């Protein structure tokens, strides 16, 4: 006997009949009736009229029947909110049933009933279930919190469920932990700044322990959650990576991809010279390759992600070209993705193999695939210069096949090759011209016309060829028309005598007979240029073209970094940020990679204002430097700490100018790292979030070495102190005054600009002590023009030398001449310029002479105060 018979009752008055059966005294008949109701619901009939009758069956001792009634409730409660209240009592009762299966069922179903009135009654049972002795009930209750939050967030917060949920992360049962993590992540998604998943080394440790024990799905929740964490330093990062790598051996592809996401993100923080970094790189390749043996849909997801990984870290898969070779029975979407990755991996080492494959693909039958293969050959030529010749000859072979779309595609890419390698392959033009008639696609026609125009002087019958296109000028697409106009003008400038008539004709076609404004405008511009100043026209039209770059379709670095943080998700498949396709996700934080362990290693970081908070590893901030400072302090015994000179904080940006944000700060050099120390104060009424910072180009190439580390939102009247490490590898532009720095700070409200001046001493590097001999020699070589003198008052000489050394100003020699103490000093700036100084001291009124080489600027050495 099967259930299918329930689908067959289609008699008249069905609802009426069912109603009678539902109210029957016989249990068996009742159950049959409910099954019929569910069957009708399944095929899409509206059986909501039976609501009270079905709910009446809810109090049953039959589990199957109970489940069916619950199912019915989930479907229709929303349409019958008033009657749904009737069910509340049973739910509450079921939540106390001795059988955990029933308790869990009740709490699971209650959460799916999206009726406000009911949710209030839900709280008490849910609170109990969250503390239930049975883990099966607890894990179900954990998810229920997320459901409730989706219906009424305020209620969940007021009832303190979030805290209970956080407690469950420490539950003894791994499934409960996994569901709690999943629920919290889901809730956190709608509260981007709530700091709900308060991840710290302790909680991370708990998660990593649960990771070993929970189901495959639980492992995915935990890994996805881990990916949101930013370790404090490279050591923590490494230890997490070590505990995540075993997941790469999991049979479930989704677990593997989530593990890859965590590793790709945390790797960013590992110094590249670390042995472990190399080990990790090697470990990533095999599992990625194995993903290609999964089901085609999973292969597709894997390939889209590999495409990102290859762009971010090409070294991982550079030896794995062959696994991306296309198989005959691959689905087309897999084939196209593989092709894309093949081109990305193409290099001089493997180009021969790649070309042989591409040539093979170009003779397949699937038109889209063939086109892409032909295009790929062109991209190889542009990418790997050594292969260009072979690529061109392969393309010529393909043109000989005379297969229409192959020829057209080939001509489009050959145009690009011409642009990349001018004056190299023009010998093939004759072959191209033979195929002029077969071109029927606008892109191919435009490409061919461009070639004819560009090389008009080498094509004897260029005028005839272009004239032939001109006949049907008005039937062509805009792309072709514009190209034709330009090509004929080029031809005219090259061979003015024979083509006057032709150019007249095209200009009049473009300006008088066309109603396309782009075409008309371009026509007029050419016309005027030609009639007023033919020489200028030549300079404009025949100007040298910039070379095209190798990789044309790379994903923009900030987007790429965000996508790496979304490995495995739809965003990584679409290659779009979630905000581009998820409704209501505006304002959600963009995920970012953490900052690299080697400063300046990723110049893309912090470029562009999409940059939002990632955390700067604390290790750079100074434990080492602090220790050294203490040592000096002990030895020096002077009133001032012996570290580098730090000017007091000044207000850089008053609150009035920045909608309530006040920024004050200073600069310091700690443990060899330049720090910009900022104090942000929120003097406005609303919360500020999403801080980011950017510098304008400046004299010493100062640039933020990482994003601004403001993790928690800044509430009204709150103040936060942030240290921003700076690097000196940014773009350089001479400023006036020299040490002026223009800064832009962004938050959720607006972007603000201010400028400040940093002490030059900040740029003095630690290895600025010059050898005596070198010093003498250099001193003599400095031309007098570069010398300057000025005086400093009220200096205390005794401690000068020591203090100066703290600021990386090194005393090379000291002598006394005519009752004056002379100190000779050297300083090296971060951009490699040396400053040599002579300090003359006369009875407490020191006279300071500064001399420097190569640079013309005058340092305002203000360390003496």
């Amino acid at each position, binding site marked *: 006997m099967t259930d299918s018979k329930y689908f067959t009752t289609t008699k008249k008055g069905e609802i009426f009949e069912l109603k009678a059966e539902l109210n029957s005294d016989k249990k068996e008949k009742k159950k049959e009736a409910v099954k019929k109701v569910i069957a009708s619901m399944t095929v899409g009939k509206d059986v909501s009229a039976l609501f009270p009758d079905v709910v009446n069956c809810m109090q049953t001792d039959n589990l*199957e029947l109970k489940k069916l009634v619950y199912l019915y409730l989930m479907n229709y409660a929303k349409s019958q909110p008033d009657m749904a209240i009737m069910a509340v009592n049973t739910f509450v009762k079921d939540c106390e049933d001795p059988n955990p299966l029933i308790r869990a069922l009740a709490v699971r179903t209650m959460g799916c009933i999206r009726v406000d009135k009911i949710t209030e009654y839900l709280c008490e049972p849910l609170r109990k279930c969250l503390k239930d002795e049975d883990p099966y009930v607890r894990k179900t209750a954990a998810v229920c919190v997320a459901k409730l939050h989706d219906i009424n967030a305020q209620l969940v917060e007021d009832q303190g469920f979030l805290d209970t949920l956080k407690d469950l992360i420490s539950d003894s049962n791994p499934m409960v932990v996994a569901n709690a993590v999943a629920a919290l992540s889901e809730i956190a998604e709608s509260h981007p700044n709530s700091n709900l998943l308060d991840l710290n080394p302790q909680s991370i440790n708990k998660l990593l322990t649960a990771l070993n024990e929970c189901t495959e799905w639980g492992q995915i929740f935990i890994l996805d959650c881990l990916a949101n964490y930013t370790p404090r330093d490279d050591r923590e990062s490494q230890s997490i990576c070590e*505990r995540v790598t075993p997941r790469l051996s999991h049979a479930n592809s989704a677990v593997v991809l989530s593990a890859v996401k965590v590793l790709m993100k945390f790797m960013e923080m590992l110094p590249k010279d670390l042995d472990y970094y190399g080990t990790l790189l090697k470990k990533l390749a095999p599992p990625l390759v194995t993903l290609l043996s999964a089901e085609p849909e999973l292969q597709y997801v894997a390939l889209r992600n590999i495409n990102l990984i290859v762009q971010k870290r090409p070294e991982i898969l550079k030896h794995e070209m062959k696994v991306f070779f296309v198989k005959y029975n691959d689905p087309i979407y897999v084939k196209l993705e593989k092709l894309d990755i093949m081109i990305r991996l193409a290099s001089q080492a493997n180009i021969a193999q790649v070309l042989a494959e591409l040539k093979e693909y170009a003779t397949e039958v699937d038109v889209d695939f063939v086109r892409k293969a032909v295009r790929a050959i062109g991209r190889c030529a542009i990418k790997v210069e050594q292969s260009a010749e072979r690529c061109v000859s392969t393309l010529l072979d393909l043109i000989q096949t005379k297969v229409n779309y192959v020829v057209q595609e080939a001509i489009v890419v050959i145009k690009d090759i011409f642009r990349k390698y001018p004056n190299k392959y023009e010998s093939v033009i004759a072959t191209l011209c033979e195929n002029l008639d077969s071109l029927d696609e606008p892109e191919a026609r435009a490409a061919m016309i461009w070639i004819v125009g560009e090389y008009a002087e080498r094509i004897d019958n260029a005028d005839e060829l272009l004239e032939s296109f001109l006949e049907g000028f008005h039937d062509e697409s805009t792309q072709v028309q514009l190209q034709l106009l330009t090509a004929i003008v080029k031809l005219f400038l090259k061979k003015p005598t024979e083509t006057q008539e032709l150019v007249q004709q095209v200009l009049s076609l473009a300006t008088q007979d066309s109603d396309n404004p782009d075409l008309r405008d371009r026509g007029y511009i050419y016309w005027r240029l030609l009639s007023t100043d033919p020489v200028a026209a030549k300079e404009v039209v025949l100007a040298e073209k910039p070379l095209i770059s190798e990789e044309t379709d790379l994903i923009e670095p900030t987007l790429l970094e965000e996508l790496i943080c979304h490995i495995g998700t739809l965003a990584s498949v679409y290659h779009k940020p979630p905000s581009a396709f998820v409704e209501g996700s505006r304002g959600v934080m963009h995920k970012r990679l953490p900052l690299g362990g080697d400063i300046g290693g990723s110049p893309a970081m912090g470029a562009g204002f999409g940059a939002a908070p990632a955390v700067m590893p604390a290790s750079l901030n100074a434990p080492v430097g602090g220790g050294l400072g203490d040592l000096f302090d002990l030895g020096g015994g002077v009133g001032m700490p012996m570290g580098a000179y730090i000017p007091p904080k000044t207000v850089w940006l008053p609150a009035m100018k920045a909608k309530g944000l006040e920024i004050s700060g200073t600069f310091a050099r700690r443990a060899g790292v330049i720090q910009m120390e900022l104090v942000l104060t929120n003097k406005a009424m609303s919360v500020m979030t999403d801080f980011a910072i950017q510098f304008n180009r400046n004299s010493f190439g100062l640039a933020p070495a990482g994003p601004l580390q403001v993790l928690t939102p800044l509430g009204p009247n709150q103040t936060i102190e942030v240290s921003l490490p700076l690097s000196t590898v940014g773009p350089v532009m001479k400023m006036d005054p020299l040490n002026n720095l223009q800064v832009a700070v962004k938050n959720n409200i607006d972007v603000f600009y201010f400028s400040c001046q940093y002490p030059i001493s900040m740029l003095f590097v630690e290895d600025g002590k010059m050898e005596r001999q070198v010093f003498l020699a250099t001193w003599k070589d400095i031309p007098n023009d570069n010398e300057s003198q000025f005086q400093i008052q009220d200096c205390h000489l005794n401690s000068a030398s020591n203090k100066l050394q703290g600021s990386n100003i090194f005393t090379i020699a000291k002598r006394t001449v005519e009752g004056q103490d002379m100190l000779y000093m050297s300083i090296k700036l971060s951009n490699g310029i040396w400053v040599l100084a002579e300090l003359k001291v006369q009875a407490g009124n020191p006279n300071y002479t500064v001399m420097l080489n190569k640079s013309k600027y005058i340092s305002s050495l203000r360390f003496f105060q």
Partner: protein
Amino acid sequence: MNFIHVLQCPLCRVVLISRNYMGNMDMNEVDHFMPIMMRMEEDADSSPLVTHGSAHFLWIKHRNLYLVAMTKKNANAALVYSFLYKMVEVFKEYFKELEEESIRDNFVTVYELMDEVMDFGFPQTTDSKILQEYITQQGHKLDVGAPRPPATVTNAVSWRSEGIKYRKNEVFMDVIESVNLLVSATGSVLRSEIVGSIKLKVVLSGMPELRLGLNDKVLFEITGREKSKTVELEDVKFHQCVRLSRFENDRTISFIPPDGESELMSYRLNTTVKPLIWIESVIEKFSHSRVEIKVKARSQFKSRSTANNVAIMVPVPSDADSPKFKTSTGSCKYLPEKSVVQWNIKSFPGGKEYMMRAHFGLPSVESTELEGRRPITVNFEIPYFTVSGIQVRYLKIIEKSGYEALPWVRYITQSGDYQLRTN
């Protein structure tokens, strides 16, 4: 992740059964799915991920059913596909075959399962053996022993129940290696790969601890034994039950096995081995008259092994007719529906070479449709043999009751994706 889970039959274009895991989505959105699929089919286009408005559909196809997940968020796509395939597995375990009829016949159980395997878009328990312990196809009375959630559901060992008993304790292991091969038309090997799999059939009582020893190169290097032949496993994937961190640490494969049949592990090797069966072919097409095919097959493994059920599929033009064959051994069949000649050799010992000739007529009017150059594919299996040389050195079985259990091991090598491109 919020998804509804829909099973859909393409012919009647009807949603067979569906479940809305997050209440905030309109069920009717799914109506857009089929039209999109139809349109894509017309354009000979295909993508496992389609979009309509803000809804994203992730689908897989099983026989004539579509399993569609729908979401409006940035869901974990890998998880979704992997879950959908898991669903197929669960349904197959329950109903033998997943098809329209089995869904209709068991819709109550299907609803129960859908309720249990996922909650609010989070996959929960998907192990069918465990599910079968508390979701059965019979109704239950609550008072008389209604099922409780087995402790297994939430245990760290979520794949094996306690209290299993057998009279005779045994473990059967199958070591199966599939050879994937891709050879270019010019006869050079483009890719050769071995995908191995170790399958278990466990008939053991209680909660046994198993330890599997393989001649794994890395392990031998750690322990300093180098005398015997070892295998370098490129990438190993394990069943949920294997302690991954233990393997990562000291390459020990230790686990509490699931009861009954399961795949314990799979591995991949990229070592280029001599293609086991080498094919040389000449396919000459004389337009408007005939096609002549010459195929030479050579077995390149040791003569004491034998390949069984060898089938060599040679593509022929779809409009070919009047086939004639001549073979040195085995028999030939023309399969017009696939446009191939299938050459069957029941038993193919190592180190032998066989020939086949085929002749087809071609119509004088040529079809305008362009045909792809399909590859020759080969199927075979070689028992008692592994290409990689992998060996099970031991399988230790320890159970606290202390029973003796016997492990049985079988080796087999078979063809995987074995393709040789033609001219």
